[in-house]
């Protein structure tokens, strides 16, 4: 089968790889019909995540058709059209029982801090991902969900990560009616977080980024204010001024370790790898939020340390909430929002690229060429 093949930082290609096999009675093999490149795949692509082995197939956002099932699978059958949450979750461990499907304790041998994730390095379990023609899906009775009749496949594939992650970013913000919410990052997750902030009753939503085409998009898509930090000089001061010198009620970091905007963070976090990515967005979020406010983090960082003003977290009495999205927990609500027209995920898709052209797709997305917001790969 054809599959993406990571060869090192900034180098990927498509190669023939062996077909995935059932390795556990609750496994399924899924023929991929759509997969995405996620902003967090770029952390792997840039070589920022430790234990990313050459030969790995990335891809944790995908949908497809069930081709084969293991002996204990009861809820799926061959031929089912499924969307597969990016978290690999057993559904029975103590963490899954709490709805923390992103923190499953039965899916990742290599690290205890994160559950298994498809195609996200050996630090997330060493599973090949869905940027391929076929993929092995463990715990087939838990994660995969049959795509509702009539749902657009582009909507469905975005329900595997982007939509629930953006939604959970807003949810973790504990947004109360009338709150001012600032979202750092106008990538797909930031766009979705801004859109979802309204669902919780926000009174004002502000997005900060540096790419004009994305700011223009989010302004229209999420009906929010959007500002370019390059023209603001100091985004923290701007947020203070625009909130009567109080700060925002909720700040969301939807960027993670690939942030731009601070030379020192970029050099130490992205060039020298002295910290687990550039924590510029998180730094701004902590400093922009009101005293006693909430910082919600869904941006992805590596497993080592980051330079953030933790003293300000203490002195301002902040609450920090963060996690990988618990996709399975949120899916019923997300499906309803899509079906009832409150969320229109497919509108963020800008590029549909054949799997064979994956190197170009990664380069376009990584370098923000051709006004790219969200690329979808078609095997």
């Amino acid at each position, binding site marked *: 089968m054809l599959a993406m093949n990571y*060869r*090192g*930082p900034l*180098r*990927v*290609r498509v190669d023939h790889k062996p077909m995935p096999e059932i*390795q*556990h*009675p*609750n496994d399924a093999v899924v023929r991929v019909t759509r997969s995405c490149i996620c902003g967090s795949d770029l952390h792997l692509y840039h*070589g920022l995540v*430790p*234990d990313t*082995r*050459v*030969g*790995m*197939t990335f891809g944790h956002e995908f949908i497809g058709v069930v081709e084969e099932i293991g002996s204990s699978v009861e809820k799926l059958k061959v031929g089912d059209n499924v969307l597969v949450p990016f978290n*690999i979750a*057993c559904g*029975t*461990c*103590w963490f899954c029982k*709490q*709805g*923390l499907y992103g923190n499953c*304790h*039965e*899916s*990742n*041998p*290599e*690290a*205890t*801090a994160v559950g*298994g994730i498809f195609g996200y390095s050996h*630090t997330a*379990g*060493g*599973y*090949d991902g869905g940027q391929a023609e076929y993929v092995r899906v*463990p*715990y087939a009775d838990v994660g995969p969900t049959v795509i509702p009749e009539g749902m657009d496949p582009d909507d469905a594939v975005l329900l595997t990560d982007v939509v629930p992650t953006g939604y959970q970013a807003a949810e*973790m913000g504990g947004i109360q009616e009338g709150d001012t919410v600032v979202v750092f990052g106008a990538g797909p997750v930031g766009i979705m977080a801004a859109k979802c902030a309204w669902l919780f009753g926000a009174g004002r939503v502000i997005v900060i980024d540096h790419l004009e085409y994305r700011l223009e998009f989010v302004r229209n898509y999420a009906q929010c204010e959007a500002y370019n930090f390059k023209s603001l000089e100091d985004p923290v001061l701007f947020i203070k001024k625009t909130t009567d010198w109080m700060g925002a009620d909720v700040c969301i970091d939807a960027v993670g370790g690939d942030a731009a905007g601070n030379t020192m963070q970029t050099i130490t976090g992205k060039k020298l*790898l002295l910290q687990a990515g550039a924590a510029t967005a998180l730094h701004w979020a902590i400093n922009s939020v009101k005293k006693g406010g909430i910082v919600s983090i869904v941006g992805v960082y*590596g*497993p*080592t340390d980051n330079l953030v003003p933790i003293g300000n977290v203490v002195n301002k009495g902040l609450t920090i*909430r963060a996690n990988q999205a*618990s996709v399975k*927990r949120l899916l019923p609500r997300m499906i309803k929002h899509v079906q009832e027209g409150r969320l229109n995920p497919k509108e963020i898709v800008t590029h549909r690229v054949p799997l064979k052209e994956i*190197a*170009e*797709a*990664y*380069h*376009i997305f990584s*370098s923000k*060429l*051709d006004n790219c917001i969200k690329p979808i790969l078609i095997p």
Partner: protein
Amino acid sequence: MDTIADHKNIKGWGVDANSQNDPTFPIKERTNEEQKGYNWKRPEQQAVNVEVLHSIERPNMPAVFGTTLPPSGLSGRIRRFAFKYSESSYAHWLPLILADRVNVVEGLIDDLKRGYIPNIFAERGWKAEWKYNRKAFTKKIIIGVAVTLLAVALLNRRRNKSKSAKDLFLKG
């Protein structure tokens, strides 16, 4: 490990408890079984047929795991060393980053051994750069070529200078 057998005997234990004041997400389902470790009915164990490194912060293998790319070669040796340390230690993560870089060289060697010469330009997606960012791409190439030519010229000049000095010395 010494723990108090029945903490409920501690004077004042739980008088200010408020289940609504739980910042974890979502709200914990309290079963009073939380402290008993692996108390859930574990899923069937996947057979371990390849070498899989596991964090020393857990006593066992999870029920399922990925089997792609077992550690091998020099990078594999470095990874095995890294997994002797906990996830809290730099001795775990820094060697893994080193192993990733070593692995890139191993990948190149493997390609060449198979008689495959990797097309680095294609792998870096430069076709897209040429299509969508031609001006900047051309500028980058021109600067790259200019810097290379300048470096070669400087090296040649230095080599010629030292050669002339040597000739002079020998003649003298």
